[in-house]
C-alpha cells in the first residue's frame, strides 16, 4: 500500500511540475511574440497619447528607458518573469492602469460565465452522447449522432446574435446587451456552451459506440444485461477517458469563446478587455490575459490528469497510456 501512495505522490509532483512548465512556456511565448515580432509598442503608445503629432525621437527614447526596453533582452525577460511571478504584468498602454487590477476586476464575471457554460456543456453533451447510443430507433440514433456536427459548425458569434434577435428583441424573454444579473447570464452561457456540448457529445458518443463493440460488451449481453445496464453501467466508465480528455480541451474552447461571446453580448469581462486590447495593440494587457488563460487551462488539465488513475485502475500513477491487458 505504501508503495502505491509513494508512486501517486511522485505522479502528482511530476504533473504539478509539468503544469508549471506549461504556464512558463506560455509566458515565454507571449514575451517572444511581443518583443520579437515586428511592430513597435512604444511608437504606438506615444501616438495614442499625443493625438496626431508624431512622437519625437527623444520622447521615444525617454519612454523606452522608463519602461526598461533599452536593456538587453535576457535582462528584460528575467525582470518580466520575476514581475509576472508576483502577479505584475505592467501597466496598460491605453489606460495606464495596472494590468493585474484590470484582470482581477473582470475575472469574476468571466469565471461565472465560464462555469455556467462548462456545466451546461457537460450535462447537455453527456445526455446527447448517451442518448445516441441508447435509443433503439435507427433514425433517432442517426439524428442524435449528426447533431454534434451541427453544434460545432455554427459560428458562436452568430448563434449569440440569433438568440439575442429572437429571445431578447422579438419575444423579450431575456434582457439584451450588457445585463449582468442571472437572467442576463442565460443567453451568453448557452451560446458559449453550444460548441462545448457538441464536442462532449461527439467524443462521448463515439467512445461509447466503440466501447459497445468490444468483446466484453458481448459477454455482458450474453449474461442478459439490458441496454441501460450496458451503456450506463459499464460503457460510460469505459468511455469516460476520451470524454474527460475532451473536457480538458473544452476549457480551452470556453476561454477563447468567452472573448467572442462577451463581445457579442457586450458583457464586461476578461474576454472583453482582451478583445479591446488586441485591437489597440495594448500588449501588456494581452500578455496578462494570455498568461491567466494558460494558467487556468493548465490547472484544469492538471486536475484531469490526476483523475485518470481514479477512472481506470489499469492506469498506474506513472503511466498514462494503458495497453489492453494480455
Amino acid at each position, binding site marked *: 500500500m505504501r508503495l502505491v501512495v509513494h508512486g501517486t505522490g511522485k505522479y502528482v509532483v511530476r504533473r504539478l511540475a509539468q503544469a508549471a512548465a506549461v504556464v512558463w512556456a506560455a509566458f515565454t511565448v507571449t514575451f517572444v511574440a511581443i518583443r520579437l515580432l515586428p511592430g513597435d509598442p512604444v511608437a504606438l503608445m506615444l501616438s495614442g497619447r499625443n493625438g496626431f503629432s508624431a512622437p519625437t525621437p527623444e520622447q521615444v527614447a525617454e519612454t523606452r528607458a522608463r519602461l526598461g526596453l533599452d536593456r538587453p533582452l535576457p535582462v528584460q525577460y528575467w525582470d518580466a518573469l520575476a514581475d509576472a511571478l508576483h502577479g505584475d504584468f505592467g501597466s496598460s498602454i491605453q489606460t495606464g492602469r495596472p494590468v493585474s487590477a484590470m484582470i482581477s476586476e473582470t475575472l469574476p464575471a468571466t469565471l461565472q460565465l465560464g462555469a455556467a457554460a462548462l456545466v451546461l456543456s457537460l450535462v447537455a453533451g453527456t445526455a446527447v452522447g448517451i442518448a445516441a447510443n441508447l435509443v433503439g430507433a435507427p433514425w433517432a440514433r442517426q439524428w442524435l449522432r449528426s447533431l454534434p456536427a451541427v453544434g*460545432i459548425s*455554427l459560428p458562436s*458569434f452568430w448563434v449569440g446574435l440569433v438568440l439575442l434577435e429572437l429571445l431578447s428583441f422579438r419575444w423579450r424573454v431575456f434582457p439584451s446587451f450588457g445585463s449582468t444579473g442571472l437572467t442576463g447570464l442565460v443567453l451568453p452561457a448557452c451560446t458559449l456552451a453550444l460548441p462545448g456540448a457538441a464536442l462532449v457529445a461527439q467524443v462521448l458518443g463515439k467512445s461509447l459506440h466503440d466501447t459497445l463493440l468490444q468483446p466484453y460488451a458481448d459477454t455482458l449481453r450474453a449474461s442478459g444485461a439490458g441496454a441501460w445496464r450496458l451503456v450506463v453501467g459499464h460503457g460510460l466508465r469505459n468511455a469516460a477517458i476520451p470524454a474527460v480528455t475532451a473536457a480538458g480541451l473544452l476549457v480551452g474552447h470556453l476561454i477563447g*469563446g468567452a472573448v467572442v461571446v462577451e463581445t457579442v453580448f457586450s458583457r464586461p469581462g476578461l474576454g472583453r478587455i*482582451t478583445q479591446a486590447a488586441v*485591437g489597440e495593440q495594448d500588449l501588456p494587457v494581452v500578455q496578462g490575459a494570455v498568461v491567466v488563460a494558460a494558467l487556468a487551462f493548465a490547472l484544469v488539465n492538471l486536475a484531469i490528469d490526476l483523475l485518470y488513475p481514479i477512472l481506470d485502475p489499469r492506469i498506474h500513477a506513472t503511466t498514462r497510456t494503458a495497453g489492453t491487458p494480455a
Partner: protein
Amino acid sequence: MIDSSPIAARARRVAGAAARRPGLVLSVLVLLLTMGWVLAPDWFGGQSPTAGVAQQRLEPPSGRHPFGTDQLGRDVYARVVHAAGLSLGTALAATAIASAAGVLLGLAAGYFGRTADVVISRIVDITLSIPSVLLSLLIISALGGGTLHIAVAVAVTSVAGFSRLTRAEVLRIRTAVHVEAAALCGARWWRILARYVAPAVVGPVLGLAALDFGLVVLAVSALSFLGYGPPPPAPEWGALVASGRNYLATAWWLSTLPGLTVGVVVLAANRLSRALETERSRA
C-alpha cells in the same frame, strides 16, 4: 444493352451510393457552389457588392434581394458572394500553411530519432498550452490585423494537430511488421519513407485537413467579427455579421444570413471530412 456497359454500371453505382447518403451529396454541392462564388463572384453575385441603391435601404429578403439589403442599400447576397473569396482564401491559406508545416514537423519528429522528436514535440506542445483563440489574438496583437496576419495567426493554432497526427502515423508505420519486412528485404530509409510511410500518412492528413478547414473558416470569421480583418470596404463574412449587429432589432437578415452561410459551409466541410474518414477506415 445499354445497362451492361461498364460506364453505365459505374454511374449507377455512384448514383446508388449518392442516394444512400443525401447529406454528403448536399455537402459536396454546397462546397462546389462556394467554390463558384470564389472563382466567379460577379457571375454568381449578380449585383454590385459595394454600390448601394439609396432608395432600397434595409429591405428584407425578397426575390430581387435574396438576402435583403443593408443600411446603404447594398445587396447582402452579393456581398456574401464577394466575401467568399477573401474568407475562404484566408482559410485555405491557413490550412495550407498549417498542414505543410505540421506534416514536415511530424515526419521529422517521427522519423529522425529521439532528440528530434523531443525538441519538435515540445515546441509543438507549447502552442497547445495557450487556448487557440488567445494564441491567435496574441499573434494578431503583435503583428497587427489584416488578411495575411489572420491566416498566420489561425494556422499556428492548427500546426500541432497535423504534426501530432503525422508523428503518430509515422511511429505506427515505422514499427509495423511490413516495414520491418521491407528492411529485411534491403529497403533503405529513403525508400521506406517514400513508399511505405508517406502513402500511409497522406490519407489521415487529408481527412484532418478537411476537418481543419471547417474549423479554420470558423476561426477566421470569428477574428474578423471581432474586428481584426481587412478594413471595411472589403466584404468578409465575419465582418458582415459584425456590421449587421447594430441593426439586430430592426433588420435581422443583415447578420443572420451571412452567419448562416458560414455555418452551412463549415457543416459541409465537416460532413466531407467525416466521409473521407470512414472511406479510409473501410479501405
